[in-house]
């Protein structure tokens, strides 16, 4: 199935992309996708960043499962205001 991944701020810079489409197996969890991404992006793994996740603009935990067409976002702790 296809999902969309977005990355923001320091995570975006570490991953080297702000948005991409990925083809993944049905029922995959957020953490599996993150593991796959950080494997190919050495700098991200080295930083040992705290990561936050959202699916379709709602916060989720890293064991949340993804469905076809979902928008997964990965980002560092927020610092707005």
């Amino acid at each position, binding site marked *: 199935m296809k999902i969309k991944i977005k990355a923001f701020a*320091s995570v975006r810079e570490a991953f080297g992309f702000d948005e991409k489409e990925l083809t993944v197996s049905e029922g995959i969890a957020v953490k599996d996708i993150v593991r796959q991404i950080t494997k190919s992006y050495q700098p991200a793994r080295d930083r040992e960043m705290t990561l936050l996740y959202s699916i379709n603009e709602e916060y989720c935990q890293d064991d949340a499962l993804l469905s076809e067409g979902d928008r997964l976002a990965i980002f*560092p702790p927020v610092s707005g*205001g």
Partner: protein
Amino acid sequence: MMRSCQKATGWPYSRPSAADKRNSMISIVLQQEAIDTSCIIGETGTDADGAVVSFIGRVRSSSRGKTVLTMEYETYGEMARKQLQKIVEEATARWSLTDCTVVHRYGSVAIGEASIVIAAASPHRDEAFQAVRFIIDTVKDKVPIWKKEFYSDGSSWINGKE
């Protein structure tokens, strides 16, 4: 509820909500342009309101001992608006606000400029004070916006609360 001073700039966002049913007004705006602070604060509140409390968050010239030249805000727009709406609806219901506006900037924000303005009106002051405090604290905790400080010798993302 579109207000005159927001027509020119920004991105007024509203949808039917529990708060609207009680005749409360909620405005959530994410914008790249400078915030017209006076206009937002001045237009918040009705004749039934005895109190308007506001918070202006501004970009400081120094941060943890370093001189900041400028600040860049990155936002996950769709999610930030959803989160802001949720936070303001909760505050409006909890403290019976009659009117509440939150405007947050993104992109480059100069030193001394407002990055966020929150204004809340209520018949009595205690509610407005508590609501504004809750909103800014929750915004800093939950809304997907990140700032990057630029110094003379580099830049740095601020992750989480300072």
